[in-house]
């Protein structure tokens, strides 16, 4: 058994290395992924070891990157694309929505486009505009795409392995502010399914659902709540499309209360979908309406106010209070 303690970014690096090693059809491509090793060093050293045809520095054009990745996939490759920051995925949005997502269905299943699109996302790193966004809802709404987001090093490693092995396009959202958080990775483990949620803390009074960067925040909130004598269950959703509603439902049937937490704006966000569906499934179990904690309906604000914008422990606990007040 090989267990290493790795920062999340390094776990992704190792995962890419494993995939490049295992399958000659895997290629990594994006802006600055080669010689520089990516602006976050996630692809550090890969070009040196696998060459310029496997780890490809591309022209500065996201639509071109995804569009050529699709072509490579049609040729039998398995491209892993890096979009440098969340806010720069939009030039590629057309290729993702009208082509990547729909080609398998368009061809009645006769072609597959196993493209993974890695996107460092979310805020909390004090960055300038376009470098802190959480656009996952804009992909989850689109049929044909799968959308996942790991919250820790082990998931980062394994979920990326599974995303690369999937014959479907996967949008892989990496919680950039957790890149430097260390966690154990067992590279010999047999991972669970890619799209199931995981209970990361058990509790009885209310359920917190989160994914990516907010899992840590929710765990902190649950710990703080415990001090006040409240028992919160925390679910790491891991997958935003599909969503493991069964696990959420099972938890809510026990706790009777649900708070969904994400960085993305609440309006039309993941929380809306989860609230709607879980309310339908658990109508007679819910003691309070599903509450949502997330970003506001405003452009991501300047760094000096992002702490106010981002859901933190206090806002999560405020929602817990409001839920318990019903």
């Amino acid at each position, binding site marked *: 058994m090989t267990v290493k303690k790795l920062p999340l970014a390094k776990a992704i690096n190792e995962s890419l290395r494993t995939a490049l090693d295992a399958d000659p059809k895997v290629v990594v491509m994006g802006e600055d992924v080669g010689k520089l090793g990516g602006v976050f060093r996630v692809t550090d050293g890969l070009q040196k070891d696998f060459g310029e*045809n496997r780890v490809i520095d591309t*022209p500065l054009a996201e639509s071109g990157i995804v569009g050529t990745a699709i072509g490579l996939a049609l040729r039998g490759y398995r491209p892993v694309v890096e979009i440098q920051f969340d806010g720069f995925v939009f030039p590629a949005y057309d290729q993702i929505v009208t082509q990547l997502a729909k080609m398998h269905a368009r061809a009645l*299943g006769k072609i597959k486009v196993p493209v993974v699109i890695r996107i460092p996302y979310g805020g909390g790193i004090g960055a300038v505009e376009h470098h802190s966004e959480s656009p996952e809802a804009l992909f989850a709404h689109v*049929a044909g795409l799968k959308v996942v987001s790991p919250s820790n090093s082990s998931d980062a490693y394994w979920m990326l392995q599974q995303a690369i092995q999937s014959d479907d396009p996967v949008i892989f959202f990496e919680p950039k502010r957790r890149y430097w958080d260390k966690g154990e990775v067992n590279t010999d483990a047999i991972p669970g399914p890619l799209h199931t949620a995981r209970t990361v803390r058990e509790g009885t009074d209310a359920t917190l659902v989160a994914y990516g960067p907010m899992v840590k925040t929710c765990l902190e909130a649950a710990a703080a709540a415990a001090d006040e004598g409240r028992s919160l269950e925390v679910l790491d959703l891991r997958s935003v499309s599909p969503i*493991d509603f069964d696990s959420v439902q099972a938890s809510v049937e026990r706790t009777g209360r649900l708070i969904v937490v994400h960085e993305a704006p609440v309006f039309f966000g993941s929380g809306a979908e989860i609230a709607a569906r879980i309310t339908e499934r658990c109508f007679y179990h819910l003691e309070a309406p599903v509450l949502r904690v997330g970003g506001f309906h405003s452009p991501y604000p300047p760094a000096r106010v992002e702490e106010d914008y981002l859901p933190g422990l206090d806002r999560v606990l405020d929602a817990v209070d409001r839920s318990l007040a019903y």
Partner: protein
Amino acid sequence: MTVESTAARTPRSAGSGSKRAAKTVSAKKDSAPGRGTPRGKSTARGKGGAAGSGEPELVQLLTPEGVRVENAAYDSYVADLTPDDLRALYRDMVITRRFDAEAVTLQRQGELGLWPSLLGQEAAQVGSGRATRESDHVFPTYREHGVAWCKGVDPTLLLGMFRGVNNGGWDPNTNGFQLYTIVIGSQTLHATGYAMGVAYDGADSAVVAYLGDGATSQGDVAEAFTFSAVYNAPVVFFCQNNQWAISEPTEKQSRVPLYQRAQGYGFPGVRVDGNDVLACLAVTKWALERARAGEGPALIEAFTYRMGAHTTSDDPTRYRRDEEREAWEAKDPIKRLRAFLESEGHADEGFFAELEAESETLGKRVRDVVRTMPDPDAMSIFENVYADGHALVDEERAEFAAYEASFADEPVNAATGGEAK
């Protein structure tokens, strides 16, 4: 296999006889100044005449009257064509046009929802399509019915998406002919990526990306030019400039001839007479050979004309004059080759009559197939959304099935919906 699709698979690029059939009448032996040989990178660039000085020259091997003119740069690419080959090209164009006309009729009869006619573009499509080898991969727009034919795709398969029974009914892997792409320009990037893969594989094949004149304005096409140049990908961009993007003339897309676009990206651009099947064949062969030889991409602008409406939904009388169409009729690609075949004695009445009969047979088959094309089952909505499945699709499929079943079992069951409650 049907008669026409068998024939469509016959490779045309290997000269099947030694008799050189495409004789020229012109005697001038020297290549036109400034045009050079098409093989050299720097000399090929800018070929076709100076920018801004009126209509640029275009590569032409057959005049509109069907007279073979010499062209030092490109003659060699058609030098080994036999009379059989020439008749086959003629057949391709006639059958393509017949098929297209049938589809237009079927649309009028309500059998198809829409049809984008290729009328007038047969030479561009057959010439370029026949220049490809079987291993070359084609990325079409939505109008490349003639190219599909050349790649051996059963033409009836093209009709499904316009009837509304699917969004693309053939297997792109079988014939190296990708599905039609409706979002303008997208496919040029797929073609480029595919060609990058061909290069990484070290394979001896190339890729053709079709696009329209309007498409040249899309950012995706520019990015395809950039990527293909930077990676030296073996891709040929074959732009059918049919003068119109729905109602907009080419001047709304560019103020200089489109083939010149390539130069600024570092690869050659050539304008060819798009109604001259020999010229289209020659220029595309040249570009594909370059690509396969590792010399990278090229842009071909086939100067042609959309003789019909943009699609059956369009009414071109609102934006263009009849005289324009009439002028282009004189350059008809089929008449042109026929004149040449006749003047050279390569085809007799029997050939034309037989071809007419074959076209009719195809037309009938197309009608029959379309009319009996079954509507998809409602449950197909949930198929092939994902290759590896998706829980929500499974849930919605089950719900929908229960919902549908609720109608079958009258009296209506109160527990419709079938949801886990």
